[in-house]
């Protein structure tokens, strides 16, 4: 993650969008927590983006919610990042929760003995309202091929072009 984007994220009210070849990461800050929305495919090719985004969150001393409702595939590399961040937050008396998980992702977290991180859906007011800042083409597509072409068209990383 470029330093300028990391700095913008640390300003607490920023919304950051990162699009890799197959997945997208959106970070939005709320009053009492930070929410990261993941979509598409999350694996070792883009887990470093998640790691960097979480590192910026860790400096803010707040809870973290990771919404995986639009994740089509998640690998162990991504779970590793989530678990390690949860441990770092835990020792700071903050909490990480994984929200809107699909059956496949719940199973993955079960297999990784990390199912305690699975929380309830992000149905809170602030979290869902933040979605309006995300480009609708990325948000609405459920076709992996369609998503790939859109993400590629945006380039990586991208940010700040939401409505």
């Amino acid at each position, binding site marked *: 993650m470029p330093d300028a984007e990391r700095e913008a994220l640390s300003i607490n009210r920023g919304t950051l969008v990162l699009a890799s070849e197959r997945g997208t990461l959106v970070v939005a800050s709320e009053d009492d927590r930070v929410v990261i929305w993941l979509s598409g495919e999350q694996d*070792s090719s883009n887990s470093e983006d998640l790691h960097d985004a979480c590192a910026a969150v860790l400096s803010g001393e707040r809870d973290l919610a990771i919404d995986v409702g639009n994740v089509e595939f998640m690998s162990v590399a991504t779970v590793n990042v989530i678990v390690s961040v949860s441990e770092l937050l835990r020792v700071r008396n903050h909490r990480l929760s994984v929200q809107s998980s699909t059956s496949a992702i719940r199973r993955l977290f079960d*297999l990784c*003995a*990390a199912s305690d991180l699975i929380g309830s859906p992000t149905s809170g007011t602030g979290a869902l309202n933040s979605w309006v800042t995300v480009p609708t083409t990325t948000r609405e597509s459920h076709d992996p091929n369609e998503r790939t072409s859109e993400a590629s068209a945006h380039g990586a990383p991208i940010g700040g072009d939401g409505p």
Partner: protein
Amino acid sequence: MNDLFLSLPRDDRQAGYLREQIRIWSTLVGLSRQQLDDLLLVASELLSNAVRAADADSVIDVCVEWSETGVSVRVGNRGPGFDLESLPEPSRTRHGGRGIAIMRALGTVTVKHVVHQTVVNVALRSPNVADPGQTAQDWVP
């Protein structure tokens, strides 16, 4: 004609391409949703491991096989092998070994070393028959 063969460059980003090909292939053999989920996870972990272990500029061979008795995925790479029994158990504070632990949970893992080549095979524990009405074509998050 029930097998999928791919030779991939040593690159993490190839895992996405591999999953694309597996999804297409799975519609031909009619895997259940859970079979496909397990296969995608195991194949991705195998490829990721192989990318880390393979010699620079080498290719990684992937074979996904389907038969009446189940699905297996085999990944071979040039490079040093590893001993399954010497891998650490995963823990909350240590990442190493989590991928292999998952593979063991989902199937039978065997490792062979053949002249500079390491081949890891995972035979997935899966039902023999796909669930009616829940094939790979129905795969949605």
